[in-house]
C-alpha cells in the first residue's frame, strides 16, 4: 500500500491524478507524465476520460480470459485489441469482464432510459409462435389431433395479431 501509485496504462510511477465527480460518484485515473501527455490530458482542446477508463480497466486475470462468444467467435483478447465487442451476445458471454468496467465508465450500471417497446413485444410474439409451432408438430406426430387443432387455432390468432402489429404506422 505504501508503494507509489502506478500508471493505469503502463507501469511507470503515476504523477498525474485525475478525479472526476459525476453526481457524487468519484472516478479516478492515475497516469505517468508521458501517458498523460500522450492522452492529451493536459491539452485544453479536451480529452475523454471515458476512453482512458476503458483502457485502464482492461487488465486481464479474470474468469472469462479463455471464453469465446458462441454467436460470433469473439474472444477477450479480441476485445483487448479492438476495444469493441463482436456482437450483442458478447455482453452476456463476457459479463464478468463488462460489469466491473461499467462502474468506472458510466454514471450507473443499469439502464433507466428508453425501452424499445414495439421491438420487444414483437420478439415476445415471435418466441411464442415458435413454441406453438413445435407443439403443433409434436401433437401431429403423436396423433393428438384435438391438441393439434387447438395449437393451430392459437397460431392463427397470433399471426393475425402479429400482422396488425407490424403494419406500418402510416
Amino acid at each position, binding site marked *: 500500500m505504501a508503494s507509489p501509485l502506478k500508471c493505469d496504462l503502463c507501469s511507470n510511477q503515476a504523477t498525474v491524478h485525475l478525479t472526476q465527480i459525476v453526481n457524487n460518484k468519484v472516478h479516478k485515473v492515475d497516469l505517468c507524465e508521458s501517458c498523460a501527455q500522450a492522452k492529451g490530458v493536459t491539452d485544453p482542446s479536451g480529452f475523454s476520460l471515458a476512453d482512458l477508463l476503458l483502457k485502464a480497466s482492461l487488465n486481464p486475470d479474470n474468469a472469462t480470459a479463455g471464453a469465446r462468444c458462441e454467436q460470433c467467435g469473439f474472444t477477450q483478447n479480441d476485445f483487448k485489441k479492438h476495444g469493441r*465487442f463482436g456482437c450483442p451476445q458478447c455482453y452476456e458471454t463476457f459479463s464478468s469482464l463488462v460489469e466491473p468496467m461499467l462502474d468506472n465508465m458510466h454514471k450507473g450500471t443499469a439502464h433507466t432510459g428508453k425501452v424499445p417497446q414495439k421491438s420487444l413485444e414483437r420478439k415476445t410474439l415471435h418466441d411464442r409462435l415458435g413454441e406453438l409451432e413445435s407443439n403443433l408438430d409434436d401433437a401431429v406426430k403423436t396423433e393428438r389431433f384435438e391438441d393439434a387443432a387447438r395449437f393451430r387455432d392459437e397460431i392463427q390468432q397470433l399471426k393475425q395479431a402479429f400482422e396488425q402489429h407490424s403494419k406500418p404506422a402510416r
Partner: protein
Amino acid sequence: MTIASLLSTPSELTDTASSKCPIVLMTRIRLARNLAGRSFPGWSREAQRAEVLEVCREALAGTAPMKRSVKAAVSELTDLQKQILVERHLISRELSGSKDGAGVVINKDQTVSVMINEEDHLRIQVLRAGFQLKKAWSVINALDSELEERLDYAYSAKLGYLTACPTNLGTGMRASAMMHLPALVISGQMEKVVRAVNQLGMVVRGLFGEGSDASGSIFQISNQTTLGESEEEILKRLGSVLESIIEHELNARAKLIETDAPKLHDKIGRAYGILQNSHLLTSSEAMNLLSLLRLGIDLSVFPEDCRTIIDRLFIEAQPGHIQNTVQHDLESVQRDALRADKLRTEFATFAKPTFTINGQN
C-alpha cells in the same frame, strides 16, 4: 435525388436563419443502435454488412422524416463528396474511411442523417441550428420509435441498447452543442473551463470531434456517459452545463469590453479588413477571422441579419467546399487563393462596422 444535387440544395446549417443565436452554433443528438442477433460492423464479413445495409435502408425508407432523402453507399462517393459531408457534419471521418457495406441516408434539408455500418449498425443523427436540445430530442426520439417498429434492436433490460463499444451502452445517446467561445479563448480561460466541464462528466472537443483543433474558437461539448441515466436526465444535465458556459462566455465578453474595448474592437476591425482585402487565406485563418466577425455581430458592431452569412461561410470556407466550386483539382495554395477570392466578394457588400463603447446587447 443524388448526393451531388443534395449538396447544392439549401440546408439547415448553411441557410436557415430562424434559430440562429449567439454562442451556440448548432445542437446535435445521435443514437447508436444495433440489430439483434448480428455481429457489429467491425466484426462482420462483407456479406453480413451488405445485408445489414439493405435491411436498414429499407426500414429507413418507410419512415416519415426520410420520405425525401438521399441514400448512398460510401463506396459510391468520391473523396470530395465524403469530405463535404464531413464538413457539414453529416457523416463521420470514420464512416468516410470505412470498408464495403457502409452507407448513409440523409434527408433533404440535411437535418437528419443515418450512418449505416459505421461503428454500430445504425448511427442516427439529428442536427439543428442554434440551441435546440429539446427539439432535436423529440425529432430523433420519434424517428427511433418508427424504426423500432420495423427493426429488432439489440437490447438488454439491464444494459439498455447494446453497442459495439461499452462506452455507448444504455441510451446510446450522445448529445452535443457546438459553441462559439471567443472571449473565453482571448482571456485565456478556456483551459479552466475544459477542466470544470470534464469534472461535470461532459467532454470538450474541437470543431470536427476527437483530436481536431478548435480554430475559430469553436468547441463541441457533449455528454460523456450514456448508462445509468435516462435520456431526459442526460439532456437536462448537459443543458445546464451549456447554460453555465454561456454565462461564463458572456461575462468574459463584458469584462473584455469593460477593461479593453479598443483592443477587442481592433481585432474585429482588422478581421473585417483582412476578409475584404486578402488574397491568400488558409481555412484555419478564415475560421478565426469569421469567428471575430460573429463576435462582432453579438456585440452589435454588425447588424443581426449578417449572422446567417457568417454561419454559412463557416461551412463554405472549408477545404472541400472550396474545391467543390471548381472542376479541376487544386493545390492547397490555389485553394487559399480561391477562398480569399470568395470571401472578398462576400465581404465587399457586407455591412460596415459601427463601433460604440457600449456596444453590448
